[in-house]
């Protein structure tokens, strides 16, 4: 009966209740959405940290961490190989040879870490092969001698990207119903090659109006981009004998991940090719990366097992190798609740105010209830339930709307391309797919109930202080 009265009391002054419910709905919706967006970001960062950059567990020579010299290869490799092949806890693993090298083309140069890999084995551990850019070749599928896959960033530094207005591009713009004036202006620089993005941009600025660039700029930039696949890059490095060596590799693929730092550092070649030119001995590798069967074993536990078993090797988990992502994984759950907590704390003041007004309006009735035998505990419960219902109604609607919003944006993604460069410099994707866990909604519901109870204390205390006789007489 008290529950029913409390619920009915919520709807006594519909417009006032709707204002509070509306505020709680908006607060919950924005909190859920921000949490969903953050989670989407963090999940993407963690996924890319594990599946593109560092894997679940990495094993190296203990000294290699401090000094990336090629002599520090993994000790007892054969034993480890045998163990990993027979362990049910390992889903897939791969090994790399690594060497720091100076890359040069006729137009540019940059330093990179050459990673010698076995492409088929690598695909089971890293999803880098899915990050080959459009028009940027493929992942070691072309039949060339000494193939190499480099990042778009490296390609840019080595001036292996051209910008050119082609017939194809003009046809596409016509299909997109771009104005004739814009197309005519672009035709004036047709087939002219620009070797840097900067030069191409200034050429566009000369022939196009600001508005045209704002609207069509991104499409033109993307379509005018041509990767000089099949180009040769010459690498200079110090081989295992300590002498400087030179070797050319031919670009077969250009990749791009959400992490500019990773892209800038890493270029991939076939392990055998690298072994030949650098003079690596068989079964000598600098790192082993593995993906763990997470259902059967905890990553940290398994890394400890490996560390104990192969004490001469350094074993690190992804949380240690990508500490930013590791910290996010541990902290974000708390962070989402902090966001919600701050929102609800602010809303609580509005709820208290509304409930105080509701109590003041009902003094006579409360006096009557106490007179006819409703004890203080029941009066308190009635007001508390009313506050919880008021808050919960708004937050349930907010959570439903939040879930729908996350469902839609989670499918199409949110594009932060205007700040892309800044995001990617930290390894964060500019295209976010918000996501949320069901448990978060349970957490929020509990939080709302707690806030409702807390917010009811002041109004309920006010009601409990009433003297029934005086309250009934009040007009």
């Amino acid at each position, binding site marked *: *009966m008290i529950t*029913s*009265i409390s619920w*009915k*009391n919520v*709807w*006594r002054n519909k417009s006032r209740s709707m204002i509070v419910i509306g505020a709680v709905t908006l607060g919950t919706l924005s909190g859920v959405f921000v949490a969903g967006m953050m989670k989407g970001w963090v999940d993407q960062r963690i996924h890319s940290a594990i599946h593109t950059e560092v894997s679940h567990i990495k094993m190296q020579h203990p000294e290699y961490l401090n000094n990336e010299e090629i002599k520090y290869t993994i000790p007892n490799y054969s034993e480890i190989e045998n163990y990993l092949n027979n362990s049910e806890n390992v889903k897939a693993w791969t090994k790399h040879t690594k060497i720091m090298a100076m890359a040069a083309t006729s137009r540019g140069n940059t330093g990179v870490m050459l990673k010698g890999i076995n492409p088929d084995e690598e695909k089971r551990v890293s999803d880098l092969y899915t990050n080959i850019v459009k028009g940027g070749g493929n992942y070691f599928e072309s039949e060339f001698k000494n193939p190499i896959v480099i990042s778009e960033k490296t390609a840019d530094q080595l001036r292996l990207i051209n910008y050119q207005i082609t017939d194809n591009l003009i046809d596409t713009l016509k299909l997109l119903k771009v104005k004739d004036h814009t197309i005519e202006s672009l035709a004036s620089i047709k087939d002219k090659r620009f070797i840097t993005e900067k030069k191409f941009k200034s050429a566009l600025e000369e022939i196009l109006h600001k508005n045209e660039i704002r609207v069509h700029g991104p499409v033109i930039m993307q379509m005018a981009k041509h990767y000089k696949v099949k180009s040769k890059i010459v690498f200079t490095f110090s081989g295992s004998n300590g002498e400087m060596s030179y070797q050319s590799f031919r670009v077969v693929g250009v990749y791009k991940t959400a992490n500019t730092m990773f892209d800038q550092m890493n270029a991939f070649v076939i392990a055998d090719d690298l072994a030949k030119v650098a003079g690596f001995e068989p079964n000598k590798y600098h790192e082993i990366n593995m993906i763990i069967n997470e259902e059967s074993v905890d990553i940290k536990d398994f890394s400890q097992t490996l560390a104990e078993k192969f004490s001469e090797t350094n074993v690190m988990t992804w949380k240690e190798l990508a500490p930013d992502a590791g910290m996010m994984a541990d902290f974000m759950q708390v962070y989402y609740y902090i966001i919600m907590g701050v929102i609800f704390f602010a809303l609580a003041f509005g709820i208290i105010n509304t409930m105080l007004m509701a109590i003041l309006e009902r003094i*006579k*009735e409360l006096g*009557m*209830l*106490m*007179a*006819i*035998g*409703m*004890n*203080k*505990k*029941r009066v308190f419960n009635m007001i508390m339930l009313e506050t919880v219902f008021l808050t919960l109604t708004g937050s349930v609607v907010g959570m439903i709307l939040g879930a729908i919003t996350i469902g839609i944006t989670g499918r199409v993604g949110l594009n932060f391309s205007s700040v892309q460069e800044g995001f990617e410099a930290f390894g964060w994707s500019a295209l976010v797919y918000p996501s949320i866990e069901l448990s978060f909604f349970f957490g929020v519901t509990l939080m709302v109930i707690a806030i409702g109870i807390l917010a009811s204390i002041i109004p309920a205390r006010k009601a409990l202080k009433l003297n*029934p*006789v005086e309250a*009934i007489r009040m007009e």
Partner: protein
Amino acid sequence: MKVIEIENLNKIYKESEIEVHAVNGVTLDFEEGEFAAIVGPSGSGKTTLLNMIGGLDDPTSGEVIVGGSSMSKLKGAELTDFRLHNIGFVFQSYNLIPVLTAKENTEFVMRLQGLSAKVCETRSEELLNIVGLGERMNARPNKLSGGQQQRVAVARALASKPKFVLADEPTANLDSKSTETLLEIMEKLNREENITFIFSTHDARVVKKARRVITLEDGKILSDVTKNGGE
């Protein structure tokens, strides 16, 4: 059998350093089945006396004994519980719960007593039929006239099967026809079910119906007259 025994009851208010003797040495008994009216001019102390009989106000001195137990010994939750199980209240301005229907308002006290939903439903229907609102059971207070609301209040007061019903100016807001109907219902309940009614009133119509009239003046009993067979 005595339902209420009042012994030398006093209530003194302090109004800006001046002591007001609202009830002054009242000693009274009420027998089961009485239909009594406490009358007197404004400020004579009738409402204060009624509030002390109902356990809503503490006497400065003296004692109210209901069914053999002294109310002055009860405090807080015990007193609330005592009211719930022993006293029915009818207020001047009906004081029904606006979000509940007539039937739910009647059931409310029984639910507080912890009775089952089935028992509450049967008794509230029975009571609303007695007060002539069998057809309006599902109407909310704002859809009922003042007289009808006060009849629901009477049904609610009786729902807890109290030892007596206290009615503070129950007809003050009613027209003469509604007053007549209400009084007839209460009188019928009193005669047929032997329910004790004690009113505080100004209303001559109530006084006319009462079988015992206690007149107060300045907090003291001026007269206590029991009529033969009422009227």
